[in-house]
């Protein structure tokens, strides 16, 4: 029982990452009809926005400390971040400590800008090309983006910890009446989950309750009619691409304390997030979110010792198995609209 509750928690948390990425993918597919293989790269760039900001915050000048020696026996060069000079040591440290949450503000405009540039500069020319071409060009773009990041940041993961206030974990078990220390969950993961819920809710509300969102939804359903009404749907779609990029980017920023970011994290997530989108139903936003959580939970259950003892290796393939079964039995995915890329 405890194990199951725990794996559901795990699944929700994993699922929130999948859902966030898949949500962005679906926004792009639903609005623009473009299959974007570079979406994982946007997630990765988001994460590196956090790295960049923490690098900026720790920009330092060196002072020579004669009392200490470095590894070659020379006087130690001590790096003093400029924020210490500006705000004093305590405030400075606090700012550095909060680099990841601060990165949200930093990453938002950058990601929207990257999204818009990408749409205007590249994706736009591929609206009328076959899906295969879209996949291929965005795949090429993903390679280029990740190689650029690797060139500047190296191949090694870069630790970007959460603020000290969120270290440690919360004892759910004790709250629910189980033995203490049985069902614990890290604070930061709880925050990640809440953040994902917030973003998903925000995107839905935005599409549901604003005029902008209404026009976009109408455009998703029938682009030509909306254009006939004299609405410049293209500009709105460009903004939607920016929004989707921002969603992916923020998912990346918030993910950095969970796993230290590296240049290939986008590719690691890419295949998976496509499976999520396909399972949820191409172009269906609620489907993407639902499938994200569902696959997260299934993956968590498949990683249980008890399950692995019966089915060794199931944790390696569960996601793909689910995808195959869903695609064969319900081609339009869990919540896909009838007729949208059904065959």
């Amino acid at each position, binding site marked *: 029982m405890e194990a199951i509750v725990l794996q559901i928690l795990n699944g929700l948390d994993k699922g929130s990452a999948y859902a966030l990425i898949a949500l962005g993918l679906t926004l792009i597919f639903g609005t623009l009809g473009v299959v974007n293989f570079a979406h994982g790269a946007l997630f990765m760039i988001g994460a590196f926005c956090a790295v960049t900001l923490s690098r900026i915050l720790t920009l330092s000048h060196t002072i020579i400390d004669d009392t200490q020696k470095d590894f070659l026996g020379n006087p130690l060069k001590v790096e003093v971040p400029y924020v210490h000079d500006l705000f004093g040591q305590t405030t400075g440290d606090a700012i550095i400590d909060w680099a990841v949450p601060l990165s949200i503000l930093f990453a938002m405009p950058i990601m929207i800008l990257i999204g818009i540039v990408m749409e205007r500069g590249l994706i736009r020319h591929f609206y009328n090309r076959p899906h295969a071409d879209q996949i291929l060009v965005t795949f090429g773009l993903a390679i280029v983006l990740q190689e650029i990041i690797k060139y500047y940041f190296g191949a*090694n*993961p*870069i630790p970007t*910890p959460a603020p000290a206030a969120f270290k440690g*974990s919360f004892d759910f078990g004790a709250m629910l009446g189980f033995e203490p220390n049985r069902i614990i969950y890290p604070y930061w993961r709880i925050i990640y989950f809440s953040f994902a819920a917030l973003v998903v809710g925000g995107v839905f509300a935005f599409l549901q309750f604003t005029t902008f969102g209404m026009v976009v939804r109408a455009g998703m359903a029938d682009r030509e009619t909306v254009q006939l009404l004299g609405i410049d749907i293209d500009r709105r779609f460009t903004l939607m691409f920016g929004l989707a990029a921002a969603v992916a980017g923020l998912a990346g920023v918030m993910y950095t304390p969970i796993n230290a970011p590296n240049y290939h994290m986008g590719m690691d997530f890419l295949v998976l997030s496509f499976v999520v989108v396909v399972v949820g139903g191409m172009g269906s936003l609620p489907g993407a979110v639902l499938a994200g959580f569902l696959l997260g939970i299934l993956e968590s259950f498949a*990683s249980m*010792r008890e399950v*692995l003892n019966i089915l060794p290796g199931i944790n390696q393939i569960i996601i793909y198995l689910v995808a195959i079964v869903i695609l064969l039995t319900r081609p339009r995915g869990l919540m896909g609209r009838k007729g949208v890329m059904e065959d």
Partner: protein
Amino acid sequence: MSKSTFSRRGVLQTGAVAGAGLAVPTIFTASSAAAFTNEPTGGTVTLGFNVPQTGPYADEGADELRAYQLAVEHLNGGGDAGMMNTFSSKALKGNGILGKKIEFVTGDTQTKSDAARASARSMIEKDGAVMITGGSSSGVAVAVQALCQEAGVIFMAGLTHSNDTTGKDKKANGFRHFFNSYMSGAALAPILASNYGKDRKAYHLTADYNWGYTTEEAVRTSTEAMGWETVAAVKTPLTQTDFSSYIAPVLQSDADVLVLNHYGGNMVNSLTNAVQFGLRDKLVNNKNFEIVVPLYSRLMAKGAGANVKGIFGSTNWHWSLTDEGSKAFVKSFGTKYGFPPSQAAHTCYVQTLLYADAVERAGSFNPCAVAEALEGYSFDGLGNGPTLYRAEDHQCFKDVLVVKGKENPTSEFDLLEIVEVTPAAQVTYDASIFGGELGSCNSGA
């Protein structure tokens, strides 16, 4: 920056054989006129440095390459000669190898066996390399070692920790200086027992591939011999990035130690996740919950950041060692590149020196002569204390370091501190326990 030219085929380096229409049948590229594959006939000799330059281990590969360049510089008589001064053998004279200037070619293994073999073959077939070295994973090491055996060149393994490399997949032309899973287990267990007690329950998370299996096996056997109990061992997919669903159930299992048989990105992520879950703040069975990482590398420690603090693991070498050899190496590497070398850099540097020395002592580049010179060779002064290249399996036996994540690092390189230098005798095992056959050396002739 040195301005030199590289990559010639051995045959033509003298220009002596340049006659029109001369056709020579060859097996691989050892021409029948030569005594063995790629016999250097000119004033230079070419070595092949095959390291990951793309993919997740690219940074490790870059560090290995730095070490190789440094070794070549020293062997050719440049720089401050580094560990050549402290090496017990005095055969090296700083004039290249056997008077031939060393040139080198580099390649990208991509940490894939196929790519690594393609790259190694191009070095042998195109560039005339007489020795191949490098790599940062056991899969690549085993694949390239088998290739070198077939081609008739010497393979000096880089970073490879699996028992298989000098165990079931050992080859007469392959040599490993780096330590292995068995040694990690044997070195770690006593330290773990003395620090954490003999009454412990361990939970293993193991990367689901060969290296993971051998490491789990080694740590299990040696800790169980100390009285520990293994509660569970769960395999995790290599492609896993988020380990939460594997780590969360650990506390429910009554275990009080978590062993992470992971390497590279897997280790960085699983350790980060485990620390995040606050496992180390917990009390289980009235003991502090502990985490162990059998194989440490500095680059991984850097990736995991503050999470490594206080966590035990083993390593082949660390720059904070204070013997003369290590100091000399750290000094020349640090002076040239501005930061201390990693253990991968160390083993690659040492392997290059050992190869050059063996050639000098054998008086020939012939792989069989070199192998003979290396087999059963005892040396000292290369950073790990007295070391033996065992003849039976071509594995080096030397001290193994047990290290711990440092609580108060003074720099981004100062992440590990040495807890114990486990003497070689304690990690030595019988050469036959892993099976495999060495075969006989192949010179390609």
